[in-house]
């Protein structure tokens, strides 16, 4: 039986008109007494209290007027702190979190024990996934242990954090305090859904209070999204809309969910609907802008792949991306013993802001790529500074997610799918292996690695700025460790175990035959063995690298040559800015020691160095040492790093391949050079023509040589090639 508060009973049962109190109006609204609620809000408009008038306008969705009245209220009201808090809540609701947070803080400055202000700050933190929300909630509970809203938020946060028992406990506390705590009931319903149980009992309970409470389903959808269950999330957003058609936030969220599923048309409709009805938060606006920008994109499909590429880049990138995707699909089909149900859709964004729109609302996602089932979005190499990004490694990473999510029906722990993806990068190309960045070494040194059962949290609720990065590293090395100790096939067995709906604890016990605690001990011992010395010497390395940098700046090449190797030995994985490899190379170059320069640059490349300028220098040295194959391999690495806006790279590589009689590769590279808008188009067309001819493709050879001569009719080598293609003409 549902218990209703006496006040509510009075409101519902009689025609008694209470004193003007905004809470009453909101209560009526919460109980789906819309007409009474509107009447109540309208009555507030004639109040002498600006704060009440503000609430009235708010309830009638006249936000501008509400804003004006709140502005007045904070100046004139005796309870300005409360007015600030309510104003902040309005601004939070209307997508202005910055000013909302300012108001909450101002309220706290006036009234440090204002629990509602902390609630406001918690709501903002939850949206931002900044890791501070629980601290604010705890503050509220320390001030008001029976604060229902705080318990509701604690429940939702616990479920975000994959703590179902805590989530249930907090939700139950809220319900015990307030039998109409619908948001707590929504969390209970979400708990059932994420555990693949029916939420009906809870939903029915909510419906007795408010049959049109769409937020129930939105709450469920939110928790499904965090678990990569985007199709299920979309289903629940639809339910939210069915229950409450004017819940524009749900329309927007549905639109974004549909974009993740590659259903662009319907996504656009939902987003436009929410926008047209005043729901214009950043995610809605940015998503619509992104959809608009798709007119500048081209979609290219072959059997297994659908590529969405910006028109300006598609001719250049398509061959590389398609070829790599086919290799990945063949590899993973074999490795995971499965085939994806449909083609992979890959979106490649030259503007990082567009890529960021695709990851909106998803905390702790990679900054380079994201996977939504069979839809993958990555930055284009042109979105990044040369050397910052490796699209090949990113693609292997994201495709691993596609397979694992499909294999486990989206029921997989965050740490495992990320760890396996990181592990796969290094399996394909050794230079792409998981490297310990300085943040990671510091975390190891300071013993900040998480127990395996808590590792998911490191991705979603980072407790320090670099924890997401450290968590990726940790997850990846866990998979490396598992492969080393138990064998590669164990990782596949773990996938199957997750697919059977086992928890991480169960997976470890059943597949690895150990306890999570023992596993943690073994793993940490492995970490100590592999990274302990570097971690413990990190401070020393920092000093040494500074000295090396100073010697380099002063052009003290003898010092650089003397100190450099020892600095590398302290931390061989470091290939970031100011690394010892490149400083040594500079020194050897200045000292005219090409053999040493080549050797150290080769070591840099092998360690995973990605600076295109250094790799080009290595290739030049390799070529001068009569090793075109090595030079071609080195330049091919750059294709995975920064293949754009560099016709010279492709022309050079094309020439090296031609020299080695790898004519198909030569065609690919000269085509890429052409697509990169070279200065010397005629020259590139001619070289492409030669390469086509060498592959036996006379038709394309003729097209290319004609193109060369159309630009430069007097181009003698091209003329000669044309005559070669027409041997019978005019002898």
């Amino acid at each position: 039986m549902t218990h209703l508060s006496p006040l509510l009973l009075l409101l519902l049962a009689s025609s008694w008109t209470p004193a003007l109190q905004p809470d009453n109006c909101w209560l009526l609204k919460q109980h789906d007494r819309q007409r009474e609620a509107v009447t109540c809000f309208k009555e507030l408009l004639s109040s002498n209290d600006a704060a009440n008038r503000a609430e009235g306008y708010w309830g009638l969705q006249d936000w501008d007027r509400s804003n004006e009245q709140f502005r007045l209220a904070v100046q004139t009201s005796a309870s300005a702190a409360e007015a600030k808090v309510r104003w902040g809540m309005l601004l939070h609701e209307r997508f202005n979190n910055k000013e909302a947070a300012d108001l909450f803080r101002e309220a706290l400055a006036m009234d440090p024990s204002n629990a509602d202000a902390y609630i406001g700050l918690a709501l903002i933190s939850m949206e931002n996934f900044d890791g501070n929300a629980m601290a604010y909630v705890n503050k509220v509970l320390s001030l008001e242990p029976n604060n229902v809203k705080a318990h509701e938020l604690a429940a939702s946060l616990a479920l975000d954090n994959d703590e179902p028992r805590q989530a249930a406990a907090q939700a139950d506390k809220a319900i015990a305090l307030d039998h109409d705590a619908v948001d707590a009931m929504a969390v209970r319903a979400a708990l059932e859904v994420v555990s693949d149980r029916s939420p009906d009992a809870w939903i029915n309970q909510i419906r007795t209070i408010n049959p049109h409470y769409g937020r129930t389903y939105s709450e469920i959808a939110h928790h499904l999204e965090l678990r990569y269950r985007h199709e299920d999330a979309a289903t629940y957003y639809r339910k939210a809309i069915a229950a409450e058609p004017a819940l524009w936030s749900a329309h927007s969220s549905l639109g974004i969910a549909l974009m993740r599923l590659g259903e662009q048309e319907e996504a656009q409709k939902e987003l436009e609907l929410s926008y047209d009805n005043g729901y214009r938060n950043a995610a809605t606006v940015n998503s619509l802008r992104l959809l608009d920008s798709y007119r500048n994109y081209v979609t290219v499909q072959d059997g297994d792949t659908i590529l969405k590429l910006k028109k300006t880049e598609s001719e250049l990138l398509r061959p590389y991306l398609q070829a790599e995707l086919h290799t990945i699909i063949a590899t993973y089909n074999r490795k995971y013993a499965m085939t994806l149900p449909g083609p992979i859709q890959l979106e490649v964004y030259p503007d990082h802001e567009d890529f960021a729109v695709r990851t909106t609302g998803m905390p702790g996602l990679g900054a380079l790529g994201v996977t939504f089932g069979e839809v993958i979005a990555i930055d284009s190499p042109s979105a990044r500074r040369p050397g910052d990004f490796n699209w090949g490694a990113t693609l292997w990473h994201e495709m691993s997610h596609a397979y694992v999510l499909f294999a486990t029906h989206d029921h997989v722990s965050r740490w495992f799918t990320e760890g396996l993806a990181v592990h796969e990068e290094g399996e394909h190309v050794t230079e792409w292996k998981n490297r310990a960045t300085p943040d990671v070494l510091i975390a190891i040194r300071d013993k900040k690695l998480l127990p395996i059962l808590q590792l998911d949290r490191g991705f979603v609720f980072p407790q320090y700025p670099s924890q997401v990065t450290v968590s990726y590293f940790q997850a990846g090395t866990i998979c490396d460790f598992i492969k080393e100790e138990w064998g590669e096939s164990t990782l596949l067995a773990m996938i199957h175990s997750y697919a059977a709906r086992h928890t991480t604890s169960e997976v470890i016990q059943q597949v690895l035959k150990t306890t999570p605690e023992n596993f943690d001990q073994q793993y940490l011992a492995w970490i100590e063995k592999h990274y302990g010395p570097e971690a413990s010497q990190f401070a020393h390395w920092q000093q040494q690298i500074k000295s090396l940098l100073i010697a380099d700046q002063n052009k003290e090449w003898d010092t650089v040559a003397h100190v450099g190797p020892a600095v590398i030995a302290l931390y061989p994985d470091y290939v970031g800015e100011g690394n010892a490899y490149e400083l040594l190379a500079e020194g050897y170059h200045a000292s005219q020691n090409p053999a040493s320069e080549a050797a150290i640059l080769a070591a840099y490349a092998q360690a995973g160095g990605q600076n295109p300028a250094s790799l080009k220098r290595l290739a030049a040295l390799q070529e001068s040492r009569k090793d075109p194959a090595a030079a071609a391999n080195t330049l091919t690495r750059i294709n995975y790093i920064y293949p754009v806006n560099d016709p010279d790279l492709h022309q050079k590589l094309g020439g090296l391949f031609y020299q080695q009689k790898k004519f198909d590769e030569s065609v690919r590279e000269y085509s890429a050079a052409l697509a990169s808008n070279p200065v010397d188009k005629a020259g590139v067309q001619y070289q492409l023509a030669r390469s086509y001819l060498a592959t036996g493709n006379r038709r394309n050879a003729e097209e290319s040589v004609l193109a060369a001569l159309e630009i430069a009719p007097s181009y003698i080598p091209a003329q000669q090639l044309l005559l070669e293609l027409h041997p019978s003409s005019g002898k």
Partner: protein
Amino acid sequence: MKPTSQRRFRQFARSGILLLPIVIPAHLYADTYYVVIAGLGGEPEYAQQFTAAAKELEKTFRASGPNAHTLLLVGDEASSSHVRDTLHSVAVTARPEDDFVLILIGHGSFDDTTYKFNLPGPDISAGEIANLCNGIRARRQLIVDTTSASGGAIPSLRHPGRAIITATKSGTEKNATVFARYWVEALEDPSADTDKSESISALEAFTYATKKTAGFYDSQKRLATEHAVFVDTAGGVPVREPGGGEGTLLSSLTLLRIGSNHPSANTPARSALLQKKEQLEQNIDVLKYQKAAMDPSEYKQQLTTLLLELARTQREIDK
């Protein structure tokens, strides 16, 4: 002023007279006078860069053949008085059928009204540079101002028969430029010869340098703070690409001859072949002009025919 500059110039004049009987007839290739000036660097790094670029250009022009007369002013030599003297001397020596090229490397300044090229000692204004160049009777002139704020010089430098290239589109682009380094590179990289004529025209050099400059900023993921432009008609608007009447003078002005394009003695048969080659090239130009209005396969067929004929003719010429 170092005495050698004037002496050097007089040596050229004398050697030009001495060489005349055995060199190609003047109507085939006129002389080109190059004046390259590296202005005040301010900081040692810039001074070194400017001087190095200027010397590279001098080296390139000197190596291009006997028709090239190069004058270089760097370091303390590059004072405003030496600049005046050098340009006066070119004015005295250059003939009306010759070409004149002035290249400025360094820093420029613009105060919303006047552009100045920074030199050791007093700077020199665009107006004064223009007056000095106006006194040179060359058939065609090219001024390449690779400095910051160089776009501010355009209004003062305009003159009939003179093409102007500036590293910046206006005087308000005041950051140090990288255009100069790619201008130098354009004259050393055969790929700048995009029409494979074995020579690099001013337009080809501009196109090369502009693309490379843009590539530099892209590779650094920096907003470009310089946008090179040119204008080669007296009343024209500075542009970034040929079109709208701009580019004809630039494309016809050969900055550098490369390859083995040394004219040799012509027999009647060879002259006939050269004439045929020229005619075919003209026919190809006409065909390309008509391309948009033609059926693509018809265009391709006609182009192929003409190109084959041209190729065979060239083969005969090369025999």
